[in-house]
């Protein structure tokens, strides 16, 4: 039996195997059905966003092609766009430069043979199992102006979540609370994979702790670093639940994700316009996703 049909899994390069036609139909279905679901509900809509971003449409009357007008308006006459963009950047930077290093630091501390490391790990990981929506909910108990822990403890009267100068930072503390544990787990797994002899060799060589880590251990963590970077960026771009729970993403908590949602769910649904914001988000995330895929699948491509 030949294996030249295009639709079915073609001839395996490594070993010559023969599959009956039934087998090939089965294999095609096994891969095809899940692929179709992902194509129809993820990639199709992703392309749909690109298409819609060049139109004006309110969902009821006829769609109208407008070229780059949505993008132009986005950048020039849509007040929340640049603040939202900026908030997303701050979000990313805080996760990447504060929360992620803290997670790495915890992982390094807990990777040592210390007593109770499992207990510590569980505690730091605990917030990760909560949804970001719930995290927002729980932190309002700490931040609330007249009933919150922080104000009652310090005697201050700060409107942590209502003051648009500080609420983003307050929310980022809560978001980081969850992010640190996530990163810690990823790095702990990575560190377990580092050959003990590498760590020891560094110590024997007379390198101090920090040098041993940054010069010897850290470079070997490169695959994990890439994953952590992607996780962090994606979390930063996806951020939505926590601000939506707190004040629907307004008053200093605007994010790109919120603007997209508002433009399609609101009374005046501006689908083309919302899609243009989605495309901005799509392009930014694709840069990182592609970097990640190239890094992750490099080995496999070579085989």
């Amino acid at each position: 039996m030949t294996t030249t049909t295009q639709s079915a899994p073609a001839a395996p390069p490594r070993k010559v195997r023969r599959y009956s036609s039934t087998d090939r139909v089965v294999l095609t279905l096994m891969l095809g059905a899940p692929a179709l679901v992902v194509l129809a509900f993820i990639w199709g809509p992703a392309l749909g966003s690109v298409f819609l971003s060049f139109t004006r449409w309110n969902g009821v009357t006829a769609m109208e092609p407008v070229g780059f007008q949505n993008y132009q308006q986005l950048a020039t006459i849509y007040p929340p766009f640049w603040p939202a963009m900026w908030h997303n950047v701050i979000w990313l930077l805080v996760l990447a430069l504060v929360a992620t290093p803290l997670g790495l630091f915890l992982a390094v501390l807990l990777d040592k043979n210390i007593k109770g490391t499992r207990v510590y790990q569980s505690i730091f990981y605990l917030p990760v199992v909560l949804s970001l929506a719930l995290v927002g909910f729980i932190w309002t108990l700490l931040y609330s102006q007249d009933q919150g822990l922080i104000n009652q403890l310090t005697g201050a009267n700060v409107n942590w979540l209502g003051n648009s100068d500080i609420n983003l930072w307050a929310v980022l503390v809560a978001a980081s609370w969850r992010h640190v544990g996530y990163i810690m787990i990823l790095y702990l797994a990575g560190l377990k994979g580092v050959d003990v002899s590498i760590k020891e060799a560094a110590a024997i060589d007379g390198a101090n702790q920090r040098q041993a880590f940054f010069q010897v251990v850290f470079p070997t963590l490169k695959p994990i670093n890439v994953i952590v970077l992607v996780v962090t960026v994606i979390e930063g771009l996806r951020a939505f639940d926590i601000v939506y729970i707190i004040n629907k993403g307004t008053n200093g908590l605007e994010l790109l994700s919120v603007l997209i949602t508002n433009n399609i769910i609101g009374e005046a649904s501006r689908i083309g316009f919302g899609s243009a914001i989605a495309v901005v988000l799509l392009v930014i995330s694709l840069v990182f996703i592609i970097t990640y895929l190239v890094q992750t699948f490099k080995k496999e491509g070579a085989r």
Partner: protein
Amino acid sequence: MSAATTTPDESHPDRTGTSSATVVTQEEPPRGRHGTGRRSSTSAPSAAPGRKNKAPLRPGRVILHVGLIVWAVLWLAPLAWAVYTSLRPYSETAEKGYVSLPDTLNFNNYVTAWTQADLPHYFLNSLYIAVPAVIIVLFMSSMAAFVLARFSFKLNLFMLMFFTAANLLPQQVIITPLYRMFLSLDIYNTQFGVVLINVAFQMGFCVFVLSNFMKALPDELGEAAQVDGAGVWRQFYQIVLPLTRPALAALATLEFAWIYNDFFWALVLLRDGDAMPVTSALNNLKGAFFTDNNLVAAGAVMIALPTVILFMILQKHFVAGLTLGSSK
């Protein structure tokens, strides 16, 4: 060996204390990240690796533990505060303030939150969505992973990327067309639709993890089965799938938690508050039903409990699920 005994850097006790026990005295080559940190390894033959595990109570260790305990207490504080607040009657906290010692601790807030916010209803909704979604996504993704991991063909790598990348997109990127699509397919405002999008969205991660796992199974399995004349479906169902059980268990735990925790899909794709799973229902619960912080706290604790309990019982699976995806 270099004889520099102290540097400003070493004044951090937690760092000195925790440096690997093989370095008994603080010896250090010229500092600097780009400096020559590495020495010929022959220069220290005396440092026996055997000393590593017996680190007696050194001051550094103590400081490390104190630091970690403080950090851990801070980390638990928000949850502990929620639990504490939830156990106190509103009248008492209104009178004495929230930061005060309790006269009464009881579960009244839980009872009120449970009934007033109709929580059982929303918990059931969460189950109706998460359980089918997890089963379907695991079933479908294990089929795809089986084909991708056990057979080589031209589009192999492309398909793996196709799946993996789909899981990494921010949800909002696809929501606009998805929303229109759900309207025209008549699955907007149905729990079925929410199950469907959760399945589609989580598929990538599951395919990625499962295909990595299945690749590690010995090749001979399939070959032996072929000699027996087993078709690919039997190879999958009777041979590979049973061996994949550990990965499936890990993923089931993780995916259940993720889908339970999903806020966005149901928020946008369901109109009726009644059909919402509990996480998305939070949005309405906050103002409408939970009138004071004590009730909010009780509600928050109850909504957190399913994943927290799951995590405590199946911690191993949780971590395994995440790290299967990351450590290739």
